């Protein structure tokens, strides 16, 4: 005799198993658990609340439709995050927010200034509370171009290799390396600037 699943206390795996058998209540519990993370990832890429909301919900719908394909190689939340990232990338491409630029253009448009600056090692944790620091990092991310931000998010937060990022972004590995480098340098200078403001 099968026991009834206690949704709030059940592990993700049990909820996924039940969802794969058509249990929508189990799926709702998964949504409730991970919706903030999925929404946050969508927002970090799109920088727009409405788009992030729509895309995160679309990701959950797609996940339900493809649940049978989930074999558990990665965690459920990792699988979900990949779905929402792909939707965001598709949306950015549709809106042509990804530009096809050369490395030289990247130099001129976003990396050139930082490359002339002395290397800045950000150390804002000394004075900033963690929540405030996160908010400031978020604002700094918002100042990057879509290309730089996406490369940074996929590498730092999603732990993807250069090759995988290049595949997803539809560019060369060299371009990924360049975007990542400029994104990091720009973040360093933005966070260092924030620290200087804080010291005033």
């Amino acid at each position: 005799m099968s026991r009834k699943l206690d949704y709030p206390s059940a592990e993700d795996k049990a909820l996924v198993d039940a969802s794969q058998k058509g249990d929508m209540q189990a799926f709702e519990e998964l949504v409730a658990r991970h919706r903030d993370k999925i929404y946050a990832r969508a927002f970090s890429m799109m920088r727009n609340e409405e788009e992030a909301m729509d895309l995160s919900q679309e990701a959950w719908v797609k996940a339900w439709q493809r649940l049978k394909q989930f074999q558990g190689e990665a965690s459920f939340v990792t699988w979900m995050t990949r779905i929402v990232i792909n939707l965001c990338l598709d949306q950015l491409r549709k809106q042509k927010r990804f530009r096809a630029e050369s490395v030289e253009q990247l130099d001129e448009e976003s990396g050139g200034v930082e490359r002339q600056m002395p290397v800045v090692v950000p150390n804002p944790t000394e004075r900033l509370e963690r929540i405030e620091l996160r908010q400031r990092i978020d604002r700094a991310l918002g100042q990057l171009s879509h290309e730089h931000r996406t490369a940074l998010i996929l590498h730092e937060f999603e732990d993807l290799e250069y090759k995988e990022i290049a595949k997803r972004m539809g560019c060369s590995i060299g371009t990924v390396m360049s975007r990542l480098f400029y994104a990091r340098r720009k973040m360093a200078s933005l966070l260092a600037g924030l620290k200087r403001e804080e010291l005033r």
Partner: protein
Amino acid sequence: MNHETELKLQAYLDGELSESEATAIREMLARDPQARSVTDALEATRTILLANEPELKVPETREFYWSKIRRQIELGEEQGAVANAGQAAPAWWLRFLAPAGLLAVLIVLIALSLRAREGASPIWAMDDGHEIETPLEETSSFSFRSEAAAMTVVWVDSHRE
């Protein structure tokens, strides 16, 4: 320091270099303070980002957020059911049409055969100028004529009415 070297230093930090390339970078870091400065800056940025990924909460209640997802799921399933029904229809028609087509062919053949026996006098041409002629039904007879053999044979069916 050129850009290519900067990217190599970054790739070293990200664990993207082969062992021999990584060894070369380690040697460079040991002797080049500028290279160390670049890697320190990149690593510090990475550390801060990893430890402080921005967190956000969905600006809607759990119920409202879920209700929209559920509606979309149900809508998708309804559309899927309609699409499946649409796909099933041709299969049903094909299953019906195959025997119906065969039946139609049989009916046509039988009708032609009956017509041939009842009314018309079809003529089937044979090689070498031979012909079999089936005259009117009332006579109930067949005739065979051969030009080559210069002969004609008439066969009368006395049992027909």
